[in-house]
């Protein structure tokens, strides 16, 4: 039985009136979302269209003052509490669609938006208490959420007995380069499981995985409080839960997560990935091969509308970053790696390329230095940002005219390079770091 003492009395009261459920969809808090009604409507449509016979519940994790109608007007609390429990009202609003079950709505009513970690922990505890079989979490900031995308998250768990469903999106070719060049290939090589969107606002999970994650002693960790998605996915991988990916459509601009502040993004994503490496080292240190996970729907798709990226500025920020942070980088990187980076910094912008083997070694050096805590870990993660900019510039220059297929091939080659150099990570990870006297 879970420790439910952190759940508020009011929430427990609401849960007692719900009873057991088959499906649960949680709406995560999001600073960018000033109302949750559109998301609730889409979830209800998903239930009506795809899960007519199932017992369902919608859990709102946003602050109590975040609820409102589609026009942004606040919705009366009684209306929220009653939800669409009234079949007549519900069916009148959506003619031609009907459900045999009451769609329960539960609101956590936090006075302020909770951190993502607290929100996820609350959803997991609710899923555990209601014995939900399949759960999904969606963000109210996602502008293009559809009933089908919610069904795509729930169906593999409810019908195919998977435990974790990661989303797949259509992206612009230059969107999500941190995912493409770092998070995905590195996590795939290290943890042996090719989940492309390790950090996403949407995901699905089974009640079994919810119970497992809930009982882990990690909720006080800063990495989990800020961005628990990657940890949840990696926990599923490392504990032999069945994982898959489901196509959700286009990734909306509202799903930027940590926002545009690259330092914050790095802290929350790369910092969490490195923390997971540290936390799960018993699992991955002896792991050699990686495998792809089953995918429902089309695989990763790309679009290529023109963009107004300032490539020169990206390159200048890389160059000045490597120069200014030289003492910090020298304490993190292997001398050979550092020397190679200093060499490419001196190249002209047109000739500059960040080769994949150097990029992989750089990341593995950072991961090992994070493990050995050679400098403050927060500083270490921030020091990676200029190098990522270098990689971004190189990637944009290399793939300016590439087709999606060519970009996918390059991505696969990068994944292979990460796997090829995994022994280097192991070696550096296990090496004893001596403080020079």
């Amino acid at each position: 039985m879970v420790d439910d003492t952190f759940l508020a009395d009011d929430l427990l009261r609401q849960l007692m009136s719900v009873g057991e459920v088959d499906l649960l969809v949680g709406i995560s808090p999001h600073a960018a979302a000033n109302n949750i009604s559109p998301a609730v409507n889409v979830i209800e449509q998903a239930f009506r269209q795809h899960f007519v016979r199932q017992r369902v519940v919608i859990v709102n994790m946003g602050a109590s003052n975040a609820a409102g109608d589609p026009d942004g007007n606040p919705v009366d609390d009684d209306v929220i509490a009653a939800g669409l429990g009234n079949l007549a009202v519900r069916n009148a609003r959506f003619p031609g669609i009907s459900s045999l079950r009451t769609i329960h709505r539960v609101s956590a009513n936090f006075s302020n938006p909770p951190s993502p970690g607290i929100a996820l922990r609350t959803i997991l505890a609710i899923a555990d208490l209601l014995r939900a079989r399949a759960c999904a979490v969606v963000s109210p900031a996602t502008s293009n959420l559809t009933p089908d995308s919610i069904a795509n998250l729930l169906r593999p768990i409810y019908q195919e007995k998977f435990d974790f469903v990661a989303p797949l999106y259509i992206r612009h070719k230059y969107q999500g380069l941190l995912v493409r060049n770092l998070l995905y290939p590195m996590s795939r090589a290290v943890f042996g499981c090719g989940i492309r969107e390790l950090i996403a606002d949407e995901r699905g999970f089974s009640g079994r995985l919810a119970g497992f994650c809930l009982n882990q002693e990690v909720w006080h960790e800063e990495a989990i409080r800020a961005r628990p998605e990657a940890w949840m996915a990696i926990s599923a991988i490392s504990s032999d839960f069945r994982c898959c990916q489901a196509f959700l459509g286009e990734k909306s601009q509202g799903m930027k997560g940590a926002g545009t502040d690259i330092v914050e993004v790095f802290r929350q994503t790369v910092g969490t990935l490195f923390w997971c490496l540290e936390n799960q080292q018993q699992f991955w240190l002896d792991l050699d091969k990686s495998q792809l996970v089953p995918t429902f729907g089309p695989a990763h798709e790309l679009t290529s509308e023109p963009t107004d990226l300032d490539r020169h500025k990206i390159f200048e920020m890389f160059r000045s970053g490597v120069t200014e942070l030289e003492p910090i980088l020298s304490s993190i990187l292997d001398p050979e790696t550092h020397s190679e980076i200093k060499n490419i910094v001196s190249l002209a912008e047109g000739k500059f390329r960040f080769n994949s083997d150097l990029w992989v070694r750089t990341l593995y050096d950072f991961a090992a230095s994070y493990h050995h805590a050679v400098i403050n870990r927060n500083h270490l993660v921030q020091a990676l940002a200029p190098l990522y900019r270098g990689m971004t510039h190189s990637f944009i220059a290399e793939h300016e005219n590439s087709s999606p297929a060519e970009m996918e091939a390059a991505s696969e080659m990068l994944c292979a390079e990460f796997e090829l150099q995994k022994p280097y990570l192991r070696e550096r990870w296990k090496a004893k770091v001596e403080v020079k006297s």
Partner: protein
Amino acid sequence: MRQIILQGLEQVYSNLVHMVAEFLPRFLVMLSIILIGLLVAFVLRYIVRVLLRLTKLDRVSEQSGATGVLRMAHLPSMTELLSRSIFWVTWFGFILVGLSVLGVASLQEQISRLIRFLPEVFVAILIMFLGVAIANFLSRTALLAAVNAGHPSAKILSWSIRFVIWILAITMTLEELGLGRQTVISAFSIVFGATMLGLAIAFGLGGQDLARKSLERYFGDTKKEKNKEPQPL
């Protein structure tokens, strides 16, 4: 005459014997105390070294940047430095106690003054160490933030922060030691005030464009800025 000389010599000899007889045991006690002190200092150094290694002080020191400063000054690691300090302080204390056994009045006064001064030296060393560690940590934080924000003078900003904290730490250290208290405080006030005024004037006159751009960045239209880099996620 001869008798007087012999009596004088006899007196000197007996005084010498008496002095040696009185001094030798004290000297031997002093030597014993110093030797015991050496032994105790060795044991303490060993214990402190083991304890500090167990608590992974070197890692904390490395993270805070203090090890980097020690390296720059060609000093050993933090664990080694502290354990060696304990050794020398302990042994020095025993040496002082041993010397006081000799009973030399003027020496005793100096020794007691030195012993009274020791806690202040310890506090001063601690203040200096904390100052260096805080200066390194904050200057590195500023450097990383400035570099990642694309600030043109990241290193200058970082060094300014380091310099100000160092000055503050040195001033506090000297004040703790009671060295030229008024002079140090006045000097610090003048240097700090002058630096700040200089920076303000430099920024106001020389960096008008920079100030305008900074203000525009904070209060102006930021949409254009956002598109300069692709969305990382």
